């Protein structure tokens, strides 16, 4: 594998060069993006400045025939959190980049003249060309244009108008199997950093390449077979997720009283079954949409889907749980068609749906719109796409919006909006929100195996320290899985079935000719977190930033009427290993 470095600020115009992986050999995904950013980006640099870098890295197993291996990591210093960011996405480009032999693309510098560029990559090389005709195009129109220019066998990585306007909620879009810009590295404003590099789109054509070959093909095939068997036989990955997608969580989280509603005022949304995964799947089926669909080739879980309108016309990919919550329940909107349109607009403008939903919730509480008003939500989001003064405020996320509007209840950690689980209901997730290097992040502490849990000794589940230790182990294991390019949803099968976790390790070992063990996976995760934490410290993030907003400790959440109870001194022990 090799690294493609593109210096967008080079004398005479942007220049590309390829170099060996070097000291980054053996790293992929989040491990690679975090290592490069930690080494090469000055922690105190301005996130929108020339010294920041945007790193796009497939995972260690991307481009192989391993199931579930198509995820991609996007890393930089975040304009939203001020810390080291890794945002993760599905879609096709990860597989394609890896088959072309790229371990990472690193965008560096800043173009001098404010031009907009596209970068075309195929087996013959890299071509960077200015193209101001792409200015302010939504991701959907952009992709259509690229299809006309380069054909239908491409993959696209792009930013929408939000990225061009360098909004801190801007995402980087990745096309799916149908060549639609529906998968996003959403969190932390990575799209704004791509915007500062003047890169509107990276177009990838991997024709003429083949899947990457493992060192031991027989062992690799065997491990993959066991891995797939494990995923298919598990009720979550083999049945629940394919049938209903991630939005299957709505009813359950709501029942637990941990479904943040009305800008985190309540823990239950009375109309939640109108926007549940069950209702969403039924609606799609009845209208000729598709409730079972993969976001990249090689996905066997197929948790995505296709949402259509009442006449059967495509609207957007099946909105995920986080999106349905953020743009739905959090804003008291109970109409799936409205939520689908909001999702489509977010994809087109290139903004994070979680950040936008939290932002609109804050704006609603501030009086800019009524809770439950779907049309008002659509209008607010359209302001973002237009880049109006209001839109620029909203497009910079919940923290900025809350400050401008004089709001106290602003659900952010390290400037990033909280996702769809109220930490007062599920306090361990609150520990992760508070302490993660990524800001409030629901995927940062996601995966665990029985082996990993035993590392660090026994913890009392009823004590706050128990939750802190558990969150620590989860964050370590997640950082490791994010480095493989594997979809995090394998975690559930891996959690329950030790043989499936072993199959994942066997895949890595067979591909690279290694002898990794579960402990080795743990060490990789720790290394990643350590690098991120150290960067954050140098960037000025301290223990004071590892905290939830004050209102979580003061406002009891109905229906259980509880506050967040984990003490600061316990949160401060999380990174003690």
């Amino acid at each position, binding site marked *: 594998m090799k690294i493609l470095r593109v210096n967008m600020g080079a004398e005479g115009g942007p220049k590309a060069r390829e170099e060996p992986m070097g000291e980054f050999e053996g790293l992929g995904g989040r491990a690679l993006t975090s290592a490069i950013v930690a080494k090469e980006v000055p922690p105190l640099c301005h996130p929108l400045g020339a010294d920041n870098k945007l790193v796009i890295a497939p995972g260690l197993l991307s481009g192989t025939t391993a199931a579930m291996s198509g995820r991609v990591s996007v890393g930089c210093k975040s304009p939203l959190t001020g810390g080291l960011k890794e945002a993760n996405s599905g879609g096709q480009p990860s597989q394609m980049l890896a088959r072309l032999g790229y371990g990472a693309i690193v965008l560096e510098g800043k173009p001098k003249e404010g031009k907009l560029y596209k970068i075309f990559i195929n087996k013959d090389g890299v071509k960077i060309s200015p193209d101001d005709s792409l200015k302010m195009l939504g991701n959907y129109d952009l992709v259509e244009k690229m299809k006309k220019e380069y054909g239908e066998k491409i993959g696209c990585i792009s930013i929408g108008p939000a990225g061009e306007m360098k909004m801190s909620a801007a995402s980087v879009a990745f096309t799916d199997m149908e060549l639609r810009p529906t998968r996003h590295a959403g969190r932390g404003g990575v799209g704004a950093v791509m915007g500062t590099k003047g890169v509107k789109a990276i177009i990838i054509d991997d024709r003429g390449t083949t899947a990457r070959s493992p060192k031991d093909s027989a062992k690799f095939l065997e491990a993959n077979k066991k891995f797939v068997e494990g995923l298919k036989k598990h*009720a*979550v990955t083999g*049945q*629940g*997720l394919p*049938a*209903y997608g*991630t939005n*299957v*969580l709505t*009813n*359950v*989280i709501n*029942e*637990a*009283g*941990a479904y943040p509603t009305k800008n985190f005022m*309540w823990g*239950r949304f*009375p109309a939640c*079954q*109108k926007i*549940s995964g*069950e*209702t969403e799947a*039924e609606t799609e*089926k*009845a209208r000729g949409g598709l409730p079972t669909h993969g976001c990249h080739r090689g996905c066997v879980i197929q*948790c995505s889907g296709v949402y259509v309108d009442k006449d059967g016309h495509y609207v957007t990919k099946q909105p995920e*749980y986080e999106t349905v919550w953020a743009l739905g329940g959090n804003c008291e909107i109970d109409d799936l068609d409205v939520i689908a349109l909001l999702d489509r607009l977010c994809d087109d403008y290139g903004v994070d749906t979680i950040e936008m939903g939290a932002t609109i919730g804050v704006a609603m509480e501030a009086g800019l719109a009524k809770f439950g008003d779907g049309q008002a939500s659509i209008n607010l989001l359209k302001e973002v796409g237009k880049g109006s003064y209001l839109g620029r405020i909203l497009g910079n996320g919940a923290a900025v919006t809350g400050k401008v509007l004089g709001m106290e209840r602003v659900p952010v950690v390290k400037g990033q909006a909280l996702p769809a*689980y109220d930490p*007062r*209901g*599920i*306090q*361990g*997730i609150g520990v*992760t929100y508070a302490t993660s290097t990524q800001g409030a992040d*629901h*995927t940062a*502490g*996601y995966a*665990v195996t*029985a082996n990993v*849990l035993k590392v660090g000794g026994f913890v009392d*589940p*009823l004590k706050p320290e*128990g*939750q802190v230790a*558990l969150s620590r182990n*989860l964050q370590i294991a997640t950082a490791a899985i994010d480095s493989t390019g594997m979809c995090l*949803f394998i*975690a*559930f099968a891996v*959690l329950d079935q030790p043989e499936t976790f072993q199959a994942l390790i066997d895949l890595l070992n067979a591909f690279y000719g290694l002898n990794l063990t579960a402990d080795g996976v743990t060490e990789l995760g720790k290394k990643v977190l350590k690098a991120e934490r150290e960067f954050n410290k140098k960037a000025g993030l301290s223990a004071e930033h590892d905290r939830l907003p004050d209102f979580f400790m003061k406002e009891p959440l*109905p*229906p*259980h009427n*509880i506050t967040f*109870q984990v003490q600061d001194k316990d949160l401060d022990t999380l990174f003690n290993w």
Partner: protein
Amino acid sequence: MLGERAAGRISFAESIVNEAHSIVTLRLILVADLLSVFSPLLQRGFMTKIQTGTVVKAVLCEQFGLSPEYVQDRIKTIFLDGKAVDDIDSAILKAGSTLALSGPMPGLAGATLRREGLLASFRSQITHRGDKKDYPTRVEGMITVKIFNLLLDEIGPVFLKRGIYLPRGDFQDFFNNIPEKFQKEFGAAEVNGQKIDLDDLQKMDWLGQNDTVFLSVDFDAPTSN
């Protein structure tokens, strides 16, 4: 607002048991394909009579007729009055309880809420701690049951065959929004034991002054092909 609604349901349920309500019985005989039509009702929650003062496991197995293996292997997430249940041998169902049943859920939150899950400590503040009080047992009472995701197809028919109680308003709301395929694939219906055709069923005159509908559904109707 949330508390008022729950309190209203409890008093309504009590009054059904105390026979302070007038109930009309509607039995539908439908093809299996129409199960999905009832999904909103099953998710939102319906009332059913049980012998109260009994632990969750006994109600599920002895009263609802679910096998212990099914309960163990498929009903992986259970809430009793909004609290996650780990021990179904100690959590007691009382009159007015709300019992929510789900398959295993994805993600960190899903793993956290799962019955006897490794990550249960993450939600210790909303864990059902078991009932230490003694409650009168085997007293007929009404509870609310909610069924989610994979369990809708698997045990939804069990509850619909057994029969569910719906306040008149909830039934009308449901029936007024019923999808077209109900009309296209309709089988047969009986009101208080008397046959009724689809047109008359849809007019809803048969509700009369009754304020409660006891709805049962048999998915036994032959398919058209």
